[in-house]
């Protein structure tokens, strides 16, 4: 999955902040945050091969399964917790979201929007689970086990008492404005800036 949709949200990460990047992969995004926003970062990934590449970039990374609950991080340990395009791969996305807004003052989360019109057409007309360039796997071998739509996600946030501070959407070339106003239908993926609901 491309993490390019995070370019738009670089501004959401305050200069000099502490960042936890969940599912950091080869560390490219964390490296960018370090270079462009002077953050102090920690990356988490389950794959040792990814860790080696991230370590090569001079990053501090730890091998851990996000599904195990991230208990190694204390409350409010980080300014920002990032989960880029991995929400749909988690066993319990709702638990992970709650942990993220506990560990971080804020969290940034992105996911592919299953409510996109192309997905709907695929399912509606072909009657088969959608596959695309961004989602190239079959339903049975995809790591994406918990797809949601933009509206699903926002409903879950409300249920979990998580505030949405900002939303950015990524759409096809010609659909920028449509994605902005009708994200559930036109955004291919969505990025949210969230935090615990303030009492």
């Amino acid at each position, binding site marked *: 999955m491309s993490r390019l949709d995070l370019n738009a949200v670089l501004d959401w990460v305050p200069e000099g902040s502490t960042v936890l990047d969940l599912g950091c992969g080869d560390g490219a995004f964390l490296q960018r945050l370090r270079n462009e926003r002077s953050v102090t970062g920690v990356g988490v990934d389950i794959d*040792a091969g990814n860790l*080696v590449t991230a370590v090569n970039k001079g*990053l*501090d*990374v*730890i091998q851990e399964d996000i599904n195990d609950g991230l208990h190694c991080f204390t409350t409010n340990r980080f300014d920002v917790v990032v989960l880029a395009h991995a929400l749909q791969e988690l066993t319990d996305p709702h638990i992970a979201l709650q942990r993220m807004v506990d560990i971080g003052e804020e969290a940034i989360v992105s996911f592919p929007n299953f409510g996109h019109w192309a997905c709907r057409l695929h399912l509606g007309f072909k009657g088969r689970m959608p596959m695309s360039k961004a989602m190239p796997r079959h339903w049975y071998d995809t790591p994406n086990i918990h797809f949601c739509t933009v509206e699903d996600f926002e409903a879950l946030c409300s249920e979990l008492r998580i505030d949405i501070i900002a939303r950015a959407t990524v759409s096809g070339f010609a659909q920028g404005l449509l994605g902005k106003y009708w994200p559930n239908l036109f955004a291919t993926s969505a990025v949210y800036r969230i935090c615990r609901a303030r009492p």
Partner: protein
Amino acid sequence: MAPTLPADSVGIVTPKLARFEESFRFANGGILEGHELVYETYGELNAAADNAVLICHALSGTHHAAGFHAAADKRPGWWDMAIGPGKPIDTERLFVVCSNNLGCCDGSTGPNTMQPGTDKPWGGLFPQPQVRDWVRSQKQLAEHLGIARWAAVIGGSLGGMQALQWAVDFPDWVEHCVALAAAPGLTAQNIAFNEIARHAILSDPDWRDGDYLAHGTVPARGVALARMVGHLTYMSADGMSDRFGRELREGSFAPESNNEWVFQVESYLRHQGTRFSTQFDANTYVLMTRALDLFDLAQDHGGDLVAALSRSQASFLVVSFSSDWRFPPHRSLEIRDALLAAEKPVTYANIETDDGHDGFLLPNKTYEQLLKEWMRRVGPS
């Protein structure tokens, strides 16, 4: 003969001896009036003396970590895999020091050394060292070498614990710390295995209350048995199945065959035990296993590992090995999680391997790459 040495070897190395005249007081109260440490160095100390790396050896390790003592040597130092030009601990950039711990039997003052004022070796009267004593004695060695700060302190198993102790006891001295297959302290099971090893030695009639040298005996059977038990805990069940299976080295499974069966694994363990018993001193083995038992990083900090590690100023690399059941991955996670809670920079990986506890000494692509990539941040850039 020299051309037979591999290009990425540190080559022929000669151990050096440092003599310290001032008295050394052990944490447990024993005193040495003067002592010696044997050590090896690889690479060159730079003018700023900021490229020095300390390697801490494990239970039965020595100062001979890399290279060969003679071109005819069959085996290089115990961690030659990791130390050398272009290797993870790159001797083209780094000045590598490895010393034999105080109380060992490979040249540093220990139970085999003559006790001053007597005509006998120390034997069983040698003071019990602890990991923190070794750290203090290595600090003396560093000062002797003109080093004021280690770019990194690195070790596996007991050596990893020693590296952690360094980072906690002398925070100003340790810029990076690598703890491989280590633990923050020993469990009851760990201590139990050590006790079996000690019991094997102490119940050998040739032990003579630790005074065997004066009696001209060697408790070789006890040491061999201790090593067999120890060695078993370094390997994983799957690794042993792959390597030995149920293969016979002698005898046959055929009906009515003789009853002199020797399984491959038996033969291997016997060989390891016997070889070790001719090389390693019994008193030292007793002292080393006891030092392990006594190791508890959190002890001086109210049992709080986070408080202990909060003192450190180092960046850490913590590595565990999936099939290690002597110091299993969850022990490394205790270290990692305490470091995270103390907000210390830490990289952690659990290496998939069937090599058990010995994994930290054996070739493994991911492990070697990780160590190599992480070590790039050590030393002057």
